[in-house]
């Protein structure tokens, strides 16, 4: 097997809310991402998937655990290595309205990275920007315009061009399509897939839309309240979900097909997400789980490989029980 490009080891991120309360947004997650693949990270709001992404790209310090990119701990990088990392890993953001500086022209937005790192590979700044605009399906004449003159989908393309300017190896896409209209979502997803093929990019794709994540990802990790519940190849995960939470998510995800919608078995997840400030003891999901047992409240389930390359943390699988 090839060496992973990204290794996340037991990563934790906590926020001090006030004197007495600590929010454990990410509570010990581990996974690896291999070069050229798309790793999907799904979960409901507040599960910590965005915080995980931001900690991986070193927007936040890690509270515990480590993130290795190309074998180096991203939170300990200094000088040259730090600069290299800032080029090699890029991010695409959720809100196409907030992610572009309203006072800058498209030219300046896309060239931001070039300016910071003083790189244009011997070509002029304009040339690079024009080429990037073309790559993402816009044209030269757009370079002098301001973000507010574009539609959401076009803005997202500008955001992608900005990331590509750095010629990255790895892109974290934090809900890149959830703010877009349905007909435009497919445009952006197709563009991302095209770029991946052409440039050999690796993606960490963070989203809450299961059908889109399944479509775009090679492997998928499911998060719940700061922890990883399940991780497997995307086909495998959808064919044979092991964790009751994944099962519930899959059966509640709306499918645009009335007959399938009528026929499929519905596993409803009852109740609401507990407060992340005061998560349940033991298995985080036990309060909503249809299979909850006594042990679930007392013992944290272990993160185990229940089937080859299929990881889960649930007491239904004997290996998960530490005793």
């Amino acid at each position, binding site marked *: 097997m090839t060496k992973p490009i990204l290794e996340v080891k037991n990563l934790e991120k906590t926020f001090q809310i006030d004197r007495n309360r600590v929010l454990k947004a990410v509570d010990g997650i581990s996974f690896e991402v291999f070069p050229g693949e798309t790793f999907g990270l799904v979960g409901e709001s507040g599960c910590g998937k965005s915080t995980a992404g931001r900690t991986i790209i070193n927007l936040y310090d890690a509270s515990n655990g480590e993130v290795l990119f190309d074998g180096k701990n991203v939170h300990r990088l200094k000088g040259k290595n730090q600069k290299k990392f800032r080029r090699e890993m890029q991010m695409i953001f959720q809100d196409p309205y907030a*992610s572009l500086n309203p006072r800058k022209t498209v030219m300046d937005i896309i060239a931001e990275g070039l300016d910071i790192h003083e790189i244009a590979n011997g070509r002029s700044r304009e040339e690079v920007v024009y080429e990037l605009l073309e790559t993402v399906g816009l044209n030269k004449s757009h370079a002098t315009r301001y973000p507010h003159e574009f539609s959401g989908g076009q803005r997202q393309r500008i955001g992608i061009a900005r990331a590509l300017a750095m010629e990255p190896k790895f892109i974290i896409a934090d809900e890149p399509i959830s703010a877009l209209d349905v007909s435009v979502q497919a445009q952006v997803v197709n563009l991302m897939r095209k770029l991946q093929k052409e440039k050999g990019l690796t993606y960490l794709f963070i989203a809450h839309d299961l059908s889109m994540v399944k479509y775009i990802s090679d492997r998928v990790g499911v998060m719940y309240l700061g922890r990883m519940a399940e991780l497997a190849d995307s086909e495998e995960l959808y064919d044979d979900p092991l964790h009751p939470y994944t099962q519930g998510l899959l059966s509640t995800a709306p499918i645009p097909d009335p007959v399938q919608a009528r026929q499929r078995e519905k596993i409803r997840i009852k109740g609401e997400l507990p407060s992340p400030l005061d998560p349940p003891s033991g298995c985080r999901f036990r309060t909503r789980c249809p299979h909850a047992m006594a042990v679930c409240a007392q013992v944290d389930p272990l993160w185990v490989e229940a089937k080859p390359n299929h990881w889960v943390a649930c007491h239904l699988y004997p290996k998960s029980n530490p005793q």
Partner: protein
Amino acid sequence: MNSTKKLQKSWFEPLAPSEKNSEVLAPQTGYWKDAWRRFKANKGALIGLVLIILLLLIAFIGPLLNGFDYSTQNLSISNQEHLSGHFLGTDSLGRDLWQRVWYGAKVSLLIAFIAAFLDVVIGVTFGGISGYFGGRVDSVMQRILEIMYSIPNIVVIILLMMYLEPGILPIAVALAFTGWVPMARVVRAQILKLKTQEYVLAARTMGASHFRILFKHLIPNVVGPIIIAVTFSIPSAIFFEAFLSFIGLGLRSPAASLGILVNDGYRTLQLFPYQLFWPALVLCIIMLSFNLIGDGLRDALDPKMKK
């Protein structure tokens, strides 16, 4: 399908992609163009702007219209309200009031502009750093700001003026000494709001320095509120300068500012009310105009704040 118009077969040929109206971008509208359009729609603000421009023109051209200057004394013509050549008459030392009013207006405005400039430099830097870095830096800087705010600024200014040589620059410095506080508050509040925007995060993921983020990304987005704060700090500087001169801590004779002229006029108010009236009128017009412009700018640059 029974359409009223006759449909020709050729109309049902497919369109080539080039024939389709491709995506039309929203019309190119700049932030400033938009703001100017909104500003123009505000009559009061426009009147304020016209008044200020007129006033500045007269302040520079007016003194050329009669051959006097602001400082030459001629006791033989003191306190003359109507005297040929002296448009506004003369003061108690026989100096031409027309010259003195415009000279005073220029001095007052100059002091106000210097003070406002210092407000911006100090206020934006202080507020920007405090808001951007947050945490402990912010708490310390906020406490400093609160202390500055809690001391009555008149007391501070008076104390400063007792140490500084009276002159245009010292007065401006004294006014800026407390004047930057509101500016810092405005900037800090804006930066706090903007720094979590995704475009700031994007700049950080690309390795932008704090300096670059603060001055290339954040401050340009706070220009609107800064300009608004400046247009309100100018009249307040003019007012404080007048106040200082009035209580005798401002410029010294023969120099003049609107405050000194008002003070001089006030002494002879009962005998020669015109000596108070003219400088007071100019002072009022300046104050009023800047406030009108400020209101207009607030609506124009920050349309969300309007009601």
